[in-house]
């Protein structure tokens, strides 16, 4: 039986997330799972006619959870690198984000070249897009990888443990309102060639699930659900009142 059959038979779609990444997936003030990816996977479950089960792990637990069969889908703000794709199968990117460099307002960095210096320390999230990009575009800077969500990097910046941070701009913009106004700014020029993809991942043997997810995104793009989700979670901040 295919993986999809199994899901339908058991009546439950299991998704592994890391709840440290607003607005993608996080725990809201009521203690519930919420976020853009949660809504998407809920949509998938509805379309399959099964229940959604969200499994929440630390970053370290995500991949093992998928590989060991705890979860069917890995839904994280994860970049599909070629090396990673040797072990898991990534769906087509469902969104492209733009990594950015952010720093304190007072700091003098303006361009990428200002940051790409040996004396500059840059904070990133372990295993995130930001980490991959930062290593690629800021080879001279000192990179420190944090765990525990995008806020950790911002917090490390305000505490002075790093001089700048690299993360996708959405994640940064989301947390900015929580810090004193105008204390943190984003460098104007985004990092990288263009936008960077984020993708869901499944086990290599789940070929039909992989196809199904691609088809799902095709469908919601066509019927406008995709745009609604993105508008609510990514473009506006209304969700902050609800969650």
């Amino acid at each position, binding site marked *: 039986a295919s993986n999809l059959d199994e899901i339908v038979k058991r009546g439950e779609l299991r998704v592994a997330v890391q709840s*440290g990444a607003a607005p993608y997936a996080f725990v809201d003030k009521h*203690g519930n799972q919420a976020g853009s990816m949660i809504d998407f996977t809920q949509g998938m479950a509805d379309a399959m006619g099964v229940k959604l089960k969200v499994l929440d792990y*630390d970053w370290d*637990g995500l991949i093992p959870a998928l590989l*060991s069969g705890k979860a069917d889908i890995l839904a994280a703000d994860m970049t599909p690198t070629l090396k990673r794709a040797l072990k898991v199968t990534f769906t087509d990117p469902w969104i492209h984000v733009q990594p950015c460099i952010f720093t304190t307002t007072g700091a003098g960095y303006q361009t990428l070249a200002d940051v790409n210096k040996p004396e500059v320390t840059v904070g990133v999230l372990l295993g995130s897009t930001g980490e991959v990009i930062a290593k690629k575009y800021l080879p001279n800077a000192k990179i420190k990888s944090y765990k*525990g969500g995008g806020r950790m990097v911002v917090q490390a910046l305000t505490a002075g443990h790093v001089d700048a941070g690299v993360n996708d701009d959405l994640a940064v913009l989301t947390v900015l309102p929580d810090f004193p106004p105008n204390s943190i700014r984003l460098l104007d020029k985004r990092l990288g060639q263009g936008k960077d993809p984020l993708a869901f991942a499944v086990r290599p043997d789940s070929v039909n699930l992989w196809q199904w997810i691609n088809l799902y995104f095709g469908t919601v793009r066509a019927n406008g659900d995709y745009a609604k989700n993105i508008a609510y979670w990514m473009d506006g901040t209304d969700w902050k009142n609800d969650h």
Partner: protein
Amino acid sequence: MMAFYFSRLVEIFPFFLTGLWMTTKVAFISLITCTLIGFILGMIRASNNVLLKRLVGIYVAFARGTPFVVQIFIVFFIFPEWGLQLEAFPAALLAMAIMGSAFVCEIVASGINSIPKGQWESAASSGLSKMQQLRLVILPQSMKVIVPPLVGQYVLLIKDTSVVSVIGVMELTRVGWVTVVRIPEGLMVFALVGVLYFSISYPLILLSNYLERRMAI
């Protein structure tokens, strides 16, 4: 500013209580299982059966020699490959039981070994079987030596439950982490986490100190 923090605190507090409840649940169940298994293993470790002793020794070495986070990964993600697929909560309990019982085993074994040989001999001389010697004469006495460090170990085990957050059990530490993502007062959040841990650990520490003093007499 204080009022602002305070209202934040009030807002998040119920969530923390659910975390505290989960921590207490994991801790309580695993303390009991660790104690039961640990006592059995400890008796084996203090016995004369060389083979069983060795086996338990290897087990203890693994459980004490590797970080708990590695053990919990093995239980949760590698055991499935051997056919044991567990949900996060039971997996957390199993991992705690594996790790904790090794520590309890060592405490029990050294407690049993602390009883002078004469007590064994005296019990043996009156014709009691090996099991009876252990149950009626040795264990009741070694409790004096076992209980204070055991309670101390309980405190360590309670704190070790914080590690089960890596497999998604929503206990106190995890509540702290997911809360930090939403509100920026990291220090306040972790102060609260610390205070809540303190509130369950410290009474046990006091108990341990008290028992130590009482048993010393």
